[in-house]
């Protein structure tokens, strides 16, 4: 019985955090993607992308839960979301890929040479990340995805689509004929969100991930939701730390503002939310790793709850920082913006709470 990370897991997260901290622009006031390439290279050199890959494919063979502190560090450091999506896609390939797919994809992924963007959201489907209009018929993919993080620099897209009979996951190179990638104008210009249009794109059967596996889409959703929850908690924790530091330092009425209960109690409530959110997210990582029975419920719980906590934490931090909080220069807006990207990635709050209930009721019927 131990719900803590071991030293290796923790120090992995710290190392990634330090690499990100070396690129101060990542969390600076002006959103920019200028250092994205360097950051990717530095993390690749560190071996980040090889961690989840099995040894036989040139990797380290760690489990998904081993990366939980790392994913939090990616969130806290406002790393390009393409990094986490590549890790999620890696794990999806591990679990859903057939022998050829793994042999073909994993070595390049491990070497940091294949960045994979995940294309799920579409317009006109509410907040449902699952139901896709984007259709695959007679080996041709047609449709449009929005908010695909890093599609403009990724080598590969992992696309949620559907055939006549069932949902499907397709691996499509970004340079395939018929694929058009356009950057969005959006709330977080550092996230690299793109609109991706598929116009009659040829997709061979070998490009389908988990074909015939009824749980393939759920697997991707669970891994993706869990990773997003981790990044959300990274953000929430930074907001807590910055708020506390400011509350200790900033004086008004002759006292540090942290001595006023209005500020102190808000920080305390935020600390409690961070504790609860992290516990929920960590459990989801574990449940994914172990393919626990409650994996779907744990992942959706984490996504819904941690997304909410991160958004609230950004609001709290801005309020605690007072006038400085809403200045561009202080840069809290960067976290507020990224928290919104996370909130709406892989299904937003209401959809995941709904899924928790559906899973719980289904489990009751089985029991």
């Amino acid at each position, binding site marked *: 019985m131990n719900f803590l990370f071991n030293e290796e897991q923790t120090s992995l997260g710290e190392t990634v955090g330090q690499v990100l901290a070396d690129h101060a622009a990542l969390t600076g006031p002006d959103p920019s993607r200028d250092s994205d390439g360097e950051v990717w290279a530095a993390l690749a050199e560190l071996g980040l992308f090889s961690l989840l890959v099995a040894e036989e494919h040139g990797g380290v063979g760690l489990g998904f839960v081993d990366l939980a502190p790392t994913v939090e560090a990616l969130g806290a450091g406002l790393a390009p979301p393409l990094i986490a999506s590549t890790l999620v896609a890696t794990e999806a390939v591990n679990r859903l890929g057939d022998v050829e797919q793994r042999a073909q994809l994993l070595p390049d992924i491990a070497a940091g040479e294949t960045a994979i963007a995940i294309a799920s*959201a*579409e*317009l*006109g*489907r*509410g*907040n*449902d*990340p699952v*139901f896709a209009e984007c259709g695959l018929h007679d080996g041709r993919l047609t449709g449009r995805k*929005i*908010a695909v993080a890093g599609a403009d620099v990724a080598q590969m897209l992992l696309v949620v689509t559907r055939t006549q009979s069932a949902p499907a996951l397709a691996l499509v190179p970004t340079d395939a004929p018929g694929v058009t990638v356009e950057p*969005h*104008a*959006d*709330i*977080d210009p550092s996230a690299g*969100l793109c*609109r991706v249009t598929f116009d009659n794109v040829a997709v061979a059967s070998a490009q389908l991930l988990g074909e015939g596996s009824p749980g393939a889409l759920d697997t991707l959703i669970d891994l993706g939701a869990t990773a997003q929850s981790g990044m959300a908690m990274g953000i929430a924790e930074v907001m807590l730390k910055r708020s506390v530091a400011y509350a200790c330092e900033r*004086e*008004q*009425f*002759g006292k540090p503002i942290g001595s*006023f209960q*209005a*500020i102190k109690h808000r920080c305390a409530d935020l600390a409690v939310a961070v504790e609860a959110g992290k516990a929920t997210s960590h459990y989801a990582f574990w449940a994914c790793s172990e393919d626990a029975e409650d994996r779907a419920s744990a992942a959706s719980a984490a996504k819904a709850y941690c997304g909410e906590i991160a*958004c609230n934490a950004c*609001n709290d931090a*801005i*309020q605690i920082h*007072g*006038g400085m*909080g*809403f*200045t*561009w*220069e202080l840069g*809290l*807006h960067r976290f*507020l913006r990224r928290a*919104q*990207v996370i*909130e*709406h*990635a892989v299904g*937003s*709050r*209401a959809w995941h709470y709904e899924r928790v209930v559906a899973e719980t009721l289904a489990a009751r019927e089985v029991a």
Partner: protein
Amino acid sequence: MDFTYTDEEHRFRLELREWLATALPEGWGETVFEPEDEEERYLFRRDWDKKLSSGRWAGINWPVEYGGRGATLVERGIFAEEMARAKAPESLNIIGHNLAGTTILHHGSQAQKDRFLPPIIANEEFWCQGFSEPNAGSDLASVRTKAVRKGDKYVVNGQKIWTSYAQYSQWCFALVRTDPDAPKHKGLSFLLIDMSSPGISIRPLRQISGESEFNETFFEDVEVPVENLVGQENDGWRIAMTTLAYERGPEDCLGRQVRFKQELEKLLEVCAVEPTANGVLADDPVVRQKLGRSIVEVEAMRLVALKSFSRILAGDERGPDASVIKLYWSHAAQRMNEAALDILGPAAVLSEGDDDAMAGGRFQTSFLQSKAFSIYSGSSEIQRNIIGERMLGLPR
């Protein structure tokens, strides 16, 4: 209880509405909008303020002798509503009219009135506010900017923050410390500072929404003639307290409410047409609960302002009511903006300039701007102190 207007009030509304119809460019708010570039937008608003003056729609509450209309409180409410309904540009010279002008009217010398009031009401001179400082935010009485009297001049040194539109203003209405040895509420005075004086420098501060109407303003040995002192030396705190109550009164709330309601209408419009997997957004019961609450709260903003209005009309002092109103609208508007992004789902992240953005990305801009509501004009924490102590009588 009576929500009808007198004939005279009705005529006032129609006159304003007619004037607005001709004063605003054709297609205003539909196909024609304010310039996006901040500098151009400023010039546009300056021209609009001058147009207001030319139509005698600036400073309507001022006495007729100073160029106003002596408008009643109800007329001021009507004015705020109609301006908002027409989506008219916001006035640049609010500080000139509501703070500097009002204070000079009540506490200024005759010479000050003659010198300063005409160009304010004509919107020929624009004003910025020099109250807050980096270390005097919520704790406004901690102002440190010093004004030392030397002969017939004050020499001003220090730094102000949140001086909106300082770069475009001719005058600054500044709270300064004239007696460093007195208790902190007792050594403050009001000075009218010419922004073209040597020694003033300005650094813009961007907001989290990307706009930069705020500034830091630095004063280095700036000379201000002693005749630009308003009221008595060291009596500035008392004057500030009476003046500030006008900044967040029910008139302000009524105008804002109309604009928030326009946002909400836009959101309903989007929800009514935007498809989902099984209908449109407005069919989703969870979306409807969020919409329902926002509809109720935006309506309550109007009702809370009308209550306060009625109390002032009945002779009550402008007191902590203003704090109740400000606290209410700021958080209700924040909740509405949070709800809007929640409701939009993945499209919530798309902003102005993206083809797929809902309603041109306006909800996102409003969301970002709304984060300042609970901070500026007295943070929510300060408003709660005021309500707790001055309205409920709780001990300090």
